[in-house]
């Protein structure tokens, strides 16, 4: 007991002695020899207390937080999903803090008004897509994040600075981060913040002795937990506004909605494409021939039996007239484009949707729609017929008259249940210069076929060639696109 009292007394004595060092106005020590500490000068004690308060005020953890929220942030509800993406780092050695920051932000935002997407799901989907570089996230159109992750908003973050410095009797840790939350549906910045936190240990914090003055700065800068504590405190302050957007001050609310550049550019491009589409439509409409004698030739379609009953669900019959004509046939003359609106126009009244059966009509191929987009439909239920997509240099809207639609022959070199193997063989043969393509039949078999011929004989020639050159068994079959 006596020892603890002595320690306590000694500590206070040390504190008071140190205070003298700081308080220049006070020349004499607070505790004189021969006077016990409780009898210390009251005025001096007050001065010391004032000094301590001042020191605390000045040396408190320096925080610099610039934050702006959009009014639309309040619109996010539990029905909306927000994905916190991996944080970007600007220097080597920041990755650990980047992970912890993301983790801490995730934990802090659990009590927000929206649903958070599970990080493991985000990471897995990003990895699958090959987007492992957080430094490039800023350049990605948020729309792509929406389709990839299924998120309504994404949080992008960057560790701007982690600095640990040590100068014998003083050490400090500085941490700076910047984050923004972007609405993937509109590209609007919902929240933007930059925060810098700095804390230190050393003379400025009034060490309780020489030993403390020497060792405390060392401990402060070397102990990782101090950085972690600074970080958790920082995230807590940073996310406070997101947890209660209503508490934002007027100066913290963005007056004009900010759209990320990637979205603006994407929108411009899209508008251009849509304008071209409009022009195509108007030209095509003007040249529309009589519909009776026209039928599409090559069709890549996503059809399902149920679609027939849909008022809106157009069968999406997309005409793809290959520029590569079958061997042995003369190319048909160019015909006027077909334009028939598949989709019914916007109804001006509240007309209920009536199920009706649709006859296949021919939708024009939008210029923006690349063939790869057609072949990427992967749902087996929708029976995709991945006809080998020819390279289209310009939008094709020409259909053929089909008075004569002769049987075409092709050489089949393989049939697989797994598309992967079909693609593999296709790739190998394509490299060798064969006009190879894959079709999917009703039994869900991916058939690898080469070329199209007007006569069996020509097809047979190729079959023999394949047998000789490539040692691949093959047979002749009638070409059917789906």
């Amino acid at each position: 007991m006596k020892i603890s009292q002595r320690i306590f007394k000694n500590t206070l004595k040390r504190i008071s002695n140190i205070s003298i060092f700081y308080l220049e106005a006070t020349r004499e020590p607070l505790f004189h020899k021969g006077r016990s500490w409780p009898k210390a000068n009251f005025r001096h004690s007050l001065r010391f207390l004032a000094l301590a308060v001042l020191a605390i005020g000045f040396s408190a953890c320096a925080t610099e937080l610039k934050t702006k929220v959009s009014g639309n942030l309040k619109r996010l509800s539990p029905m909306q999903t927000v994905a916190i993406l991996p944080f970007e780092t600007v220097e080597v050695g920041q990755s650990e803090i980047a992970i912890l920051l993301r983790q801490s932000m995730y934990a802090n935002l659990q009590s927000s008004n929206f649903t958070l997407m599970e990080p493991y799901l985000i990471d897995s989907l990003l990895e699958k897509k090959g987007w492992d570089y957080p430094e490039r996230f800023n350049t990605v159109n948020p729309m792509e994040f929406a389709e990839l992750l299924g998120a309504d908003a994404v949080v992008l973050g960057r560790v701007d600075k982690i600095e640990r410095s040590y100068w014998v009797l003083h050490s400090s840790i500085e941490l700076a981060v910047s984050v923004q939350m972007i609405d993937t549906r509109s590209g609007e910045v919902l929240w933007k913040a930059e925060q810098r936190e700095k804390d230190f240990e050393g003379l400025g914090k009034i060490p309780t002795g020489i030993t403390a003055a020497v060792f405390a700065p060392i401990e402060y800068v070397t102990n990782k937990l101090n950085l972690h504590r600074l970080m958790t405190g920082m995230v807590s302050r940073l996310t406070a506004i997101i947890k209660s957007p209503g508490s934002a001050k007027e100066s913290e609310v963005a007056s004009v909605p900010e759209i990320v550049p990637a979205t603006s550019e994407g929108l411009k491009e899209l508008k251009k494409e849509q304008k071209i589409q409009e022009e195509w439509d108007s030209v095509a409409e003007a040249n529309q021939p009589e519909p009776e004698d026209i039928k599409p030739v090559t069709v890549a379609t996503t059809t399902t039996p149920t679609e027939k009953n849909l008022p809106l669900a157009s069968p999406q019959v997309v005409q793809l007239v290959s520029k590569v004509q079958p061997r042995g046939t003369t190319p048909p003359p160019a015909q006027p484009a077909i334009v028939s609106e598949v989709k019914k126009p916007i109804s001006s009244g509240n007309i209920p949707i009536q199920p009706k059966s649709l006859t296949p009509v021919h939708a024009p191929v939008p210029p923006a729609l690349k063939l790869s987009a057609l072949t990427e439909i992967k749902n087996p239920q929708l029976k995709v017929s991945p006809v080998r997509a020819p390279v289209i240099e310009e939008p094709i809207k020409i259909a053929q008259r089909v008075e004569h639609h002769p049987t075409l022959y092709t050489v089949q070199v393989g049939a697989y249940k797994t598309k992967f193997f079909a693609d593999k063989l296709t790739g190998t043969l394509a490299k060798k210069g064969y006009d190879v393509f894959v079709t999917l039949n009703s039994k869900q078999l991916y058939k690898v076929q080469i070329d199209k011929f007007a006569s069996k004989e020509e097809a047979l020639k190729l079959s023999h060639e394949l047998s000789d050159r490539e040692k691949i068994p093959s047979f002749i079959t009638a070409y059917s696109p789906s």
Partner: protein
Amino acid sequence: MRREPSVPSYRILWVGLLALALLLGGCGTAQVVIHQPTKSIKNYPRSVAILPFGLAQTAEIEEEPQKIFRKVFFDYFCYLGYDDMTLEEVDRRLKHFKIEEKDFPDISVEKWKTILGVDAVIKGYVWDANNFTGGIHAETTIKAKLEMLDLRTGETLWDVDHSEMSYSGIAIPSVVTMVRGQMANSDAQLSFYKTAESFAMQAIKGIPDPSGTKNFRAVLPLITRIESDLKSGHLLHPGETIHVSLFGQPGMKASFDIGSWRSGIAMKEISRGVYEGEYKLLPEDEIKNAFIIGTLRNEKGITGKKFYKQALVTIQDEES
């Protein structure tokens, strides 16, 4: 005559105290003991429920540290690749089955599985929770044991027994830090929260994460196509109706958004994998350059999205 202790002995004591402070500041790390690594089990548990944590102390603490700790631990645990049942849902089910904390030891794993319908549960027990601020000494402690129990086998998969302490007192090397620590510690709720946060952060580092296993697959609900009757460049007017069709995985909840202006417009599955919905524009709608975005949501709440890129929704200004 009484002799004053020599200065060096005080110095030694002082250095000792300082070392103690540094040690307390570090407070060790939470050691997670893994009984069953993710690799050793073919189907590592994915769905997990965190049961209410128990508290050993008889004296009631107003702040209920065990509840704070459970909430904080859940927030951090969600970061890992488990399908976490929300705490509210766990509590709701327990209430429904009239199960209280005191009944926990008597409940078999089979019964837990029936009640919660998850692969595993996390049980937590707070041995000691303490918040004290008194002049030269202030501390907040949470000493707890957590364990994850596989409800399919009854085996403990991992456990962690750790004591986390935030200390501020006489052994702190600077006056300002000491005073600041004391001030912060006086807010018991916040102190428990921060201590629980440190505990959870450390524990999470060692807890096995099933998302790293081979049989883990991240898949979103698939949307193959979205269609609308919107025409490119066509300006819309209030009263007009936008129709949207969505094709994708069957049996999901479907909705569509008009940019961020209108969200969650419900769609109906009119036939297997085909969803339809419509929205009649209202006079108060001010929509400009908005995409139609289709959403499919599965029973776990995971969503897939697809944009209709052929046209944008823009309502004509009254002035123009």
